[in-house]
């Protein structure tokens, strides 16, 4: 094929003693001398990449199986039910904490309101509804009513204080309305 038996004899030192002239021989020689290293390098790269892919594929599959096994475990009816109950309790406990922290003790406010009424005034009715207060007072002393009015109006915790006075022969009926100032 490569005419190895027909090497021409020459004394021209500028020409190699054997120089193939057909295309296949030249290709073979080139590939065996220089090109092979380039091809080997590329093949090594290709093999490296393919092996990496196989290894990573295996890791990916292993992880997939692991995740599926855990999902199957967590999908168990008992686990799901327990998880739902625990989640509910966690929500409930956080709500209880919130309700406890935000609880407004209105009994203290009502206590302060009723104890702030002077003894000279008789409380005939009392109504408290979400920071709005209505009182009906009976007294025989206008002076004590005026004192109470000024004390309410000067108290920064109360706003919109209104007094309505109705005087009978012996007693004075007072209707008081105001709001509690909240933060």
């Amino acid at each position, binding site marked *: 094929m490569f005419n190895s038996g027909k090497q021409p004899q020459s004394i021209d030192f500028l020409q190699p003693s054997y120089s193939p002239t057909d295309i296949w021989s030249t290709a073979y020689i080139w590939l065996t001398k220089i090109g092979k290293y380039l091809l080997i390098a590329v093949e090594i790269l290709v093999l490296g990449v393919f092996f990496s892919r196989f290894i990573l594929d295996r890791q990916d599959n292993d992880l997939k199986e692991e995740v599926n096994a855990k999902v199957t475990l967590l999908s168990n009816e008992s686990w799901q039910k327990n998880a739902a109950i625990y989640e509910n309790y966690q929500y409930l406990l956080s709500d209880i904490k919130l309700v406890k922290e*935000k609880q407004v003790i209105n009994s203290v406010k009502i206590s302060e309101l009723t104890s702030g009424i002077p003894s000279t005034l008789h409380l005939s009715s009392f109504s408290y509804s979400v920071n709005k207060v209505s009182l009906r007072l009976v007294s025989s002393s206008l002076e004590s009513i005026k004192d109470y009015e000024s004390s309410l109006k000067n108290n920064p915790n109360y706003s919109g204080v209104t007094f309505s006075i109705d005087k009978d022969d012996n007693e004075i009926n007072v209707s008081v309305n105001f709001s509690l100032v909240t933060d």
Partner: protein
Amino acid sequence: MERKLLNTEEYIKLIKESPEKKRGYIYAGVTVLASILLIIFAVRPTILKITQINLSIKEKGRLSTALDTKISTLSALDKQFEDVGEDLSALQLIYPSDGNFSLLLANINPILSRNGFYLGGISFDKYTDKNVAFAAKVLVPWSVKISTKGKPSNIINLLKDLEALPMFPVVESYSFTDQKDKDGLTGFSINLRIYKIDNANFYE
């Protein structure tokens, strides 16, 4: 055949432009081209695929860790629930999910009696006011109206006792008039805000 004599310059030119040299360049070019094609059509897609697989591995790793955490958390909660399960079951009475306020009802009468009051009536209703300044996840406000009779001097203690109940009730409104009945007792109307759970299967 007569051989032509060549000078040095012609020899160099002959070597540079020799057919072997040209063929060498062509084969080198073909090899490089084959390598480039191999890289473009075999290596590049594989590297892209490897990148995708790597991302998938990272994602699955995160998922696996999260699932591990969930499994260990649930296991720990199982253990804790065994320890405090009885205490937690009391919450069903404090914050009922079925609208059964039996614990509140069981406590109201003793509290009233302790403070010298008599229960006139009690009713539960939807909470329609807008006084709740916080957003709870599962607890919903509910309204309970209590009408009672007793002495005005004891009413503050009664209100304090009511607000000290474990369901953290709030006195939303309260009113009385000094009209006394034949026993000398004054009538009071108390409206409490309590809480319940709007999910019948909450504890199951």
